[in-house]
């Protein structure tokens, strides 16, 4: 799985779950502050990443995933 591929798949999940435009999902975009998510949305989003990549993201790690960039770098390290 290439790094660009991971980024694309994470972006697709974010767009699907938060109902935002693809170009809003930038490296530093915060799910809560910039993309309109609430705390329950972020829980669901992390679950979607787990499902998409077949990984388990522990709760303490999930709490550090605040931005699109955080998600991509965590998943790159986990797959």
């Amino acid at each position: 799985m290439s790094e660009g591929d991971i980024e694309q798949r994470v972006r697709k999940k974010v767009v699907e779950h938060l109902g935002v435009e693809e170009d809003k999902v930038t490296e530093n975009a915060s799910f809560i502050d910039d993309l309109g998510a609430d705390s329950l949305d972020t829980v669901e989003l992390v679950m979607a990443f787990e499902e998409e990549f077949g990984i388990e993201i522990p709760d303490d790690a999930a709490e550090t995933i605040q931005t699109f960039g955080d998600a991509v770098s965590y998943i790159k390290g986990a797959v």
Partner: protein
Amino acid sequence: MRRVVITGLGMVTPLACGVEETWSRILAGESGADTIKGFDASHLATTYACEIPRGDGTNGTFNPNDWMDPKEQRKVDQFILYGMAAAQQAIADAGLGDESDEEKERIGCIIGSGIGGLESIANTALLIREKGPRRVSPFFIPGSLINLISGQVSIRYGFKGPNHSVVTACSTGAHAIGDASRLIQHGDADVMIAGGAESAVCEIGIAGFNACKALSTKYGDNPKAASRPWDADRDGFVMGEGSGILVLEEYERAKARGAKIYAEVIGYGLSGDAHHITAPPPDHEGAERAMRAAIRHAGIDVSDIDYVNAHGTSTMADTIEMGAVQRLLGDHAAKVTMSSTKSMTGHLLGAAGAIEAIFSTLAIRDQVAPPTINLDTPPEDAVIDLAANGKVEREIDVALSNSFGFGGTNAVLLLRRVHD
């Protein structure tokens, strides 16, 4: 005591999405029953129900996207979606929406459901079995809880008054409206968004009611004939789904803002049977007591009643209810029309009392009693007119709406044309 009037109506029913669309089909005697399309029900004892007609939103069809953002729909069970659709209609109909912050603290919500997010609960239980507890959605609980229509409506509109809910099986809708009217009478609120919603037409819902032998099973070849209150060939109720919501408002406030006033809630009566978990007692004296309590509360005489919207579910209990109504009315029974709109909508459980309060309201507005369809062989001891197979145009000043629920819970509403 402060007076309470109805100033807004909204509904999603198996006949149509929308009050006027549903009402015109009710007056035409149409049935909302059909073979179940929402899922494969061919393995169940009952294969038919009254489902919401889905479509693009034209011609009375229900388009979920007209009422909730698709992203939000994913987070709620169907009963909440139906409730949100009916609430938005009712609030728009009442012309609410630009109140001050202070006024919004005097507007509350009391919207209930008989069962709530039944299908979500069933699906989540299966998901846990299949994939484990970590796959459970964070929206499962807030998307299944019964009081979450009240919560969602208050959040959308900023209504900060009493936020409440009701769960009394098939009496839910009537109890919600009655309790809301009390809250206004007692000064806890000036406006209440009140009603019920239900979405139990799913595998576990049908199987569950089949197990209590409550549902019709004999009419798989002709579902439109299955809901036949009082008829000799009735064999159980037909499940419906949807929502009915009313805007109740303190009379002087409604008058002062020039609101359209449909009718007044003049009486509310409650009682318990203390008899059996699913069946009424043979004389249903609990129903009679609830009707008498509503009449006493309203300060009217039984001879003032013109129309009764019966609970009439198309079960053995129909004739028991008729007996209680005829006992209550005495000699006046021969002058009253009683119908069961469940013959057309099916039984919407926790939403039934709410949609039937709306039909009773419209019966007063249009001076017409809706029909009881499929009533080919009425009970021999019927003295009251059962509006068999055709609407009855007549004077209707006072309408009584009955709702009875499992557990032996009875709620009765009395509505009247507004008199100054």
